């Protein structure tokens, strides 16, 4: 791996004191770097933008803009999070060091500056960022660079046998943070086999060797080994005895891993640099063979929902970027000892060889789910992605490689069939389910022709007067032998086979026609909510379809409320905003359905041309908890500030209605007012619930 020569490296020093600034500049120029000087934070920011340096050194305390704010501002400017940022700070000020890391610094140097250590530190920081840059290519990967470059700081007072160290140093050495730690305490988790190395270094120091450079291994909480490298400077007293040793410690495990990886290039996927399917199988086989005490382990296999669509919308290059970022995210969120592989185009596998119990597995899965759902940055915009993940647990589900993978895969297929965006555990009956799905799929193909698809209508009332104001059209499948089938069983099936396009068209046409009928009966303020699915949304004919359904009637378009789910809206925000704007231009109303359940981004919500949000029933259900109440209030306040209409779904109880009454909520929907019902019953409901004045 080639490291850039110093002469190509630009370093920006932001320091108000001319003496320090000049000294740093001269020392770094002497080692061949190009140095740019700035006198304060603001100048530093400008210089950063202008020169794009490879490394920045910032003084903590400066007029105009202090070092912390400067670091933060630079971090905000550079999207890749790869830039080494070194903070100059007062000696022994652990608080300011921790603060520097919090604000995004990767390292610190104390004043008075130890000049030979400074050049070493800079070489280190550049090396870390360089290796990371070559080994990984996108911003999410480089978050790790920060962590890698983050050094621990320690000082051993040899007279008092006392260790002073930064929090990160205690973490690196896997010992509790303790202001009265002795050297023995501090080194208590070092691998016993490596202790002689350290003893040798101390002996060398005692005989006058002033510099320390050593790497050794530390046993971590989970039993794995962490490779640590320490650099240090020895101070001597007048009798030439050691008075103290000051130094840094760095986790270089990833470097070790990198080197190992190179040996196994053949077993790795070239795009993401993750291991490929063959090495995954090999690792799993090994883990299963080594699992003699029958402890728990798991295999997760997942793919990205609608990845083809992402590739189509953003282009293959950006699609590849997403895969690379995802791969790095996986590396970051898995634990030491876990194994991640890319086993297909957008298909990934994770091996968790050792889990304490099912509770731990659940925690890990929750964490994965949270981390994976965070958006990716593509073209400077957030891209929200969801996953279908299948999980197979060993030795419970199976004990051989092939079957474990097969089980995880059928769980993945099942997750996908249930609409995606979920983690599903393997169950033995999944194969039966799959067969069952297949027969259902065949039936669904004939359902429209056989007129088995029906539209039901669920009442909506005005939140102030409680008078009927509209309804939401909901699809039902009246299966000849299975009876009424609810949408969450067959809609995912219809989505995956593409039948949803025709079904969606049928629902829209039927619901619009029916609403016109109600208008002609005198209920001329009735609005109709119609759900749009993601598949319809990616169909170019969507706008034409809706428009042509409407043109067969005399119904004004503003009575039609097109509902899309939050996760759908966010899935390809830019494209969706355009489609929605065109629909809105035609006079349709736009709602965000299930609001609050997806990755809500206020900034985005604001840029969507929407009229209404529908508060998801799960929040209404939780109103009796403090947290549920707080969420509902937040959503209402947000809607009010964005001037959006609000529909509360799932109202069943008086208390729930009372909560929303008098707040920024316009429409109620729920069993309290009426279930979804066929159009005839809905007409009766209209008549009985509140007969129109003739």
């Amino acid at each position, binding site marked *: 791996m080639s490291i850039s020569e110093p002469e190509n490296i630009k370093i920006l020093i932001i320091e108000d004191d001319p003496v320090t600034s000049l000294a740093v500049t001269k020392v770094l120029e*002497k080692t061949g770097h190009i140095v740019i000087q700035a006198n304060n934070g603001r100048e530093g920011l400008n210089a950063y933008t202008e020169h794009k340096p490879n490394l920045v050194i910032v003084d903590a*305390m400066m*007029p105009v803009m202090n070092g912390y704010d400067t670091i933060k501002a630079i971090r905000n400017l550079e999207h890749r999070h790869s830039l080494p940022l070194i903070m100059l700070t007062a*000696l022994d000020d652990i608080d300011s060091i921790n603060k520097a890391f919090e604000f995004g610094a990767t390292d610190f140097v104390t*004043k*008075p500056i130890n000049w030979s250590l400074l050049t070493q530190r800079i070489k280190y920081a550049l090396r870390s960022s360089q290796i990371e840059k070559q080994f990984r290519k996108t911003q999410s990967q480089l978050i790790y660079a920060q962590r890698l470059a983050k050094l621990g700081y320690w000082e051993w007072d040899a007279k008092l046998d006392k260790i002073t160290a930064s929090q990160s140093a205690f973490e690196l050495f896997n010992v509790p943070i303790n202001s009265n730690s002795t050297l023995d305490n501090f080194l208590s988790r070092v691998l016993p086999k490596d202790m002689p190395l350290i003893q040798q270094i101390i002996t060398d120091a005692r005989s006058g060797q002033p510099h320390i450079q050593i790497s050794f291994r530390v046993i971590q909480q989970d039993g794995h080994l962490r490779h640590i490298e320490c650099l240090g400077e020895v101070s001597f007293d007048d009798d030439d005895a050691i008075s103290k040793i000051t130094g840094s410690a760095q986790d270089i495990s990833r470097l070790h891993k990198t080197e190992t990886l190179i040996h196994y290039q053949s077993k790795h996927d070239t795009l993401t640099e993750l291991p490929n399917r063959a090495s995954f199988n090999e690792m799993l086989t090994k883990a299963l063979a080594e699992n003699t005490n029958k402890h728990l382990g798991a295999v997760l296999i997942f793919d990205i929902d609608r990845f083809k669509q992402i590739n189509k919308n953003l282009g293959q290059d950006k699609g590849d970027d997403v895969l690379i970022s995802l791969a790095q995210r996986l590396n970051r969120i898995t634990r030491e000892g876990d194994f991640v592989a890319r086993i297909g185009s957008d298909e990934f596998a994770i091996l968790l060889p050792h889990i304490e119990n099912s509770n731990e597995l659940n925690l890990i899965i929750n964490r994965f789910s949270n981390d994976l759902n965070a958006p990716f940055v593509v073209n400077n915009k957030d891209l929200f992605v969801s996953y279908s993940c299948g999980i197979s647990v060993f030795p419970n589900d199976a004990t051989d490689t092939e079957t474990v993978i097969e089980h995880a895969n059928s769980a993945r297929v099942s997750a996908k069939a249930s609409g995606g965006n979920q983690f599903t555990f393997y169950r033995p009956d999944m194969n039966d389910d799959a067969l069952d799905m297949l027969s259902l799929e065949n039936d669904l193909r004939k359902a429209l022709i056989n007129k088995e698809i029906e539209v039901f209508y669920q009442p909506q009332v005005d939140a102030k007067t409680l008078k009927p104001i509209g309804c939401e059209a909901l699809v039902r499948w009246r299966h000849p032998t299975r009876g009424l089938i609810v949408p969450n069983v067959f809609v995912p099936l219809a989505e995956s086979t593409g039948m949803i396009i025709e079904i969606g068209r049928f629902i829209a046409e039927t619901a619009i026609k029916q609403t016109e009928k109600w208008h002609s009966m005198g209920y001329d303020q009735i609005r109709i909510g119609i759900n749009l699915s993601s598949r319809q949304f990616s169909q170019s004919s969507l706008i034409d379809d809706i428009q042509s359904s409407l043109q067969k009637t005399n119904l004004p378009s503003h009575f039609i409320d097109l509902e899309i789910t939050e996760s759908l809206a966010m899935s390809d925000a830019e494209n969706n905003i355009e489609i929605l704007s065109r629909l809105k231009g035609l006079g349709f109303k736009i709602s965000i359905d299930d609001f609050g359940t997806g990755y809500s981004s206020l900034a985005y919500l604001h840029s969507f041309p929407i009229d209404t949000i529908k508060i998801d029933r799960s929040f209404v259900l939780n109103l009796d908890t403090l947290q549920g109440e707080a969420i509902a209030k937040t959503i209402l306040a947000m809607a009010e500030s964005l001037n959006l209409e609000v529909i509360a779904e799932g109202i069943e109880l008086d208390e729930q209605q009372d909560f929303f009454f008098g707040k920024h909520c316009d429409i109620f929907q729920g069993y309290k007012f009426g279930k979804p019902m066929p159009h005839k019953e809905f007409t009766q409901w209209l008549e009985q619930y509140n007969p129109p004045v003739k």
Partner: protein
Amino acid sequence: MHIDLNNLNMLKDILGNEFVDILNVFLETTPDYIVQLQEAASVKDIDKVKLISHSIKGSSANIGANQLSILGAELEQTAKNNDTEAFEDLITKIVDEANSVEADLQTYIQTF
């Protein structure tokens, strides 16, 4: 000697003759700092006192003027504690120490 040669020599080892430039900058800026410090103290501009004493602390530490650096740190702490009463006494000490450091540095530069 009002300067610690250990740190200075390390810098000298790396920089060679250019090292004198840094000392010259120190010799130019320190009187500036002291003037600004006296002005700030006379109008009780605590923030300014804090900032300049901090700069003195850092710049003198970097050229090995340890006693001056300690005085800078003391003044910085005094400013943080809003103890304006103590300014005058400390600034007088800083002026004296800066003069001694300057004299030592001039002598040291001659040795090049």
